[in-house]
């Protein structure tokens, strides 16, 4: 444990605190688990995985509410819940299909762009240059 600050001697202050802890019979508790790594996330891959994971609303993540309460709720409002979940399933399917179509189009467009860039004569920039090079039509006097 390091103490940061310029208004005091961090080393000395930490030593004083540790001495008091030792006097109480406490050795320093173990440090926390490190935070998640912050590696870059590819938004496409992440979204596809997330959609897969959460596609079915019936398979919800573990709930914090007591099982008895959930059971009672299911018993009392089962019909309504089923209807809502059915609607949710349909919605999720639309989202998944939309994402899949868009992803496919993005991949296709990326491929076509890469192909175009490989052919020097057909680069969009070159076409623009050719258009600029055309002689201008004279305006009538």
């Amino acid at each position, binding site marked *: 444990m390091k103490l940061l*600050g310029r208004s005091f001697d961090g080393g000395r202050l930490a030593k004083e605190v540790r001495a008091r802890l030792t006097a109480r019979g406490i050795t*320093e508790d173990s440090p926390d688990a490190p935070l998640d790594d912050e590696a870059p996330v590819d938004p496409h891959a992440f979204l596809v995985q*997330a959609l897969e994971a959460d596609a079915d609303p019936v398979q919800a993540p573990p709930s914090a509410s007591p099982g008895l309460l959930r059971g009672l709720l299911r018993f009392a409002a089962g019909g309504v819940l089923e209807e809502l979940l059915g609607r949710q399933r349909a919605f999720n399917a639309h989202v998944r299909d939309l994402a899949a179509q868009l992803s496919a189009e993005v991949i296709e467009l990326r491929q076509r762009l890469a192909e175009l860039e490989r052919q020097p004569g057909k680069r969009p920039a070159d076409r623009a240059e050719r258009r600029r090079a055309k002689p201008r039509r004279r305006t009538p006097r």
Partner: protein
Amino acid sequence: MAVVHQLLLRFRRGEPATESAIRLSALLRRLGHWGELAALEPPRSEAPWVRSLGSLRLRRTDWVLGHHAGASALTARLLLLGCRRGLVLDVLPSADPGSRAQLAGLASRVELALAPSTAAARALERAGHRNVMRFTPHVEADRFGQDRAPHGRPRLAPGRPVVVCDAGSLAPRRPEEVLAFHRELLRLRPDAQLLLLGRLHALQGVRPFVRQAVRLRGLRFLGQRAHDERVAVLRGAQLFLSLAENDASGESLLEAMAADLPVLAFATGAVPEALDGAGVGFTEKRFAFLAELAVQLSESPALRERVVEGQRRRLGAFSAERAEKSLRVALATLAGPTLPRRRRRRPRVAVLVQRYGDVTGGAEALARSIVRRMSRHWEVTVLTTCATDHLTWGNTLPAGSSSVDGARVVRFPVRFQREMPVLNALSRRLFGRSLDRGEEERWVALQGPLVPGLWRHLSEEGGRYDGFVAFTYLYALTAWAVPMVGARTLLVPTAHDEPPLAFECYREVFERPRGLLVSTPEELGLVRRRFPHHARARVVGAGVERRPGDPRRFRRRHRVDRPYLLYVGRVEAGKGIPELLAFHRALWASEREPPALVLAGHASLRAEGPGVHALGRISEQDKWDALAGATAVVVPSPLESLSLLALEAFAAGVPVIGNAHSDVVRGQLRRSGAGRVYSDAATFREAVQAVIARRAPLARKGRAFAAKHRWSNVVQAYRQEMKRIVEEP
């Protein structure tokens, strides 16, 4: 300058994105950018200040800065906007892959990413953003002074160690850490208190946390508090603890530092940069250790004093001026080209005023008189609203360009009609309290008039004007326009000693213009007391030109057959009319031949009583006819910056009876010696008797005083001040 709107997922006070957007909007105005606050889920209570995204009329050249504070639907909406897009990172995405994915998805689709710290800038660069600009967060430290805390609210037990923790800064996935800290603290000091200030908005699994928390003694959830109570908590505690792991700006620490509360903070994210050696940073969350340290910081006065002193020094780096400077650099690409300003024979000047034309109102009448006279010397354009009624701001006149007295007038529609009961209820709640910027700006928005078209015009076309003259500090039109064009502006504040003048948000309205043209020495004194660092000020006021009047014509037309007291102006409660009616009724009952009371002007209340003539609006000539025959003129308003009516009465040789509660009217009467003041029914009666008995000498003194108030002096003063702006931009 580009128009820059800000977009939030939801507008909720206390959340980092909302607070950041409020602070940024003030800074953007200071840089000349107009823009609105919009949210995907705008609360009804914040209308009309905060708009829904759908109601914004975006142009392709407008910018929208989306506030990213975690994975949300905001990203998708931002991607689909057909305008220029930017991003502000308010919460670090460290432990949230969804947030990181959205940030990466935005990287190639926003043109600009704003980071309030180096840690935020690094997170944006890691996500693939290229144009990342760093800006300095800021805190308005004056708002956290000891004088800003109400006495005894909320009640904190004296003599017990009190630790405050910002609930919004708890680590979202590990909120129970703060409970572990408190358990350790209770072992050392069983009477210790832990106060959780703010909403538990960002927590996952709030319920289990609350279940554990309520079992602990000495832990209090304070929730989202009004600003003054927040200051009281920070000022009354011994220590501010931050366990945040995704703080992108360190702004909550800055608030504690501004309240002279020692800060103990987990040194991650933006925290080390915000503290930079101030406060106490720690690198590991070992709670037994931290509890011992908290006790030492709370109970060792010498250590505490050194830490607070270091924090005070550090706060200097987070002033609004520093923040403005850094944002100016960050947004340099949004400034656009400087519009050409040709050197003209006559300077091109825009007059900003809330209403213009045939409307009743002192400031509006002064603005019209100034425009009529300055049009000979300046190329004047009046920028105003379509409203004629200041109580509703209803759009009664057509929008667009027109001509009044030969001057060009451009009218912009008002977006929101004022609802007086709503404004009055909010005023009752806020006046007399210490507020934060958000609370004040919400009041200003409800006060109105909201004229987005006018502000857009200033943002996009303001560079074409050589200078501005803005009338009345109080209204939103001026309060938000003056910071945008401050250095080229002369403000005619028409300030009264009224509760909103205590609002800190008006500070920039008085400090940023090039000059203040006040009406009386009393108004200057008031401005000096309230804003000691105000812009250069000059007492100018107004001139008066007497028109000949025919009293018989007035009596005939309005069937007034006895001596009368005259009032000309808005007939409404704020002008002291109900008291005047009551005092006149008492006079009528006690005197044998009491004078009648003539009230002329637009009425928003029923003015009735024995001997009362309520005429409604009258013409200018009718007014001079009425003045010529009046026994005395009454100025009943307790809030005046200059009584034009009193000046006109003096010019017509009529004594004045004025409300003693108005410093300005009292000052005008003292300097002129041409009238009497009243404060109740008895003194009103005495004043009426005195002016009847000494009418001739009082009239002479009044004429002599009015002769000093020439329009030629006023015009000269306006020309000199504008020349200074044009020649030394």
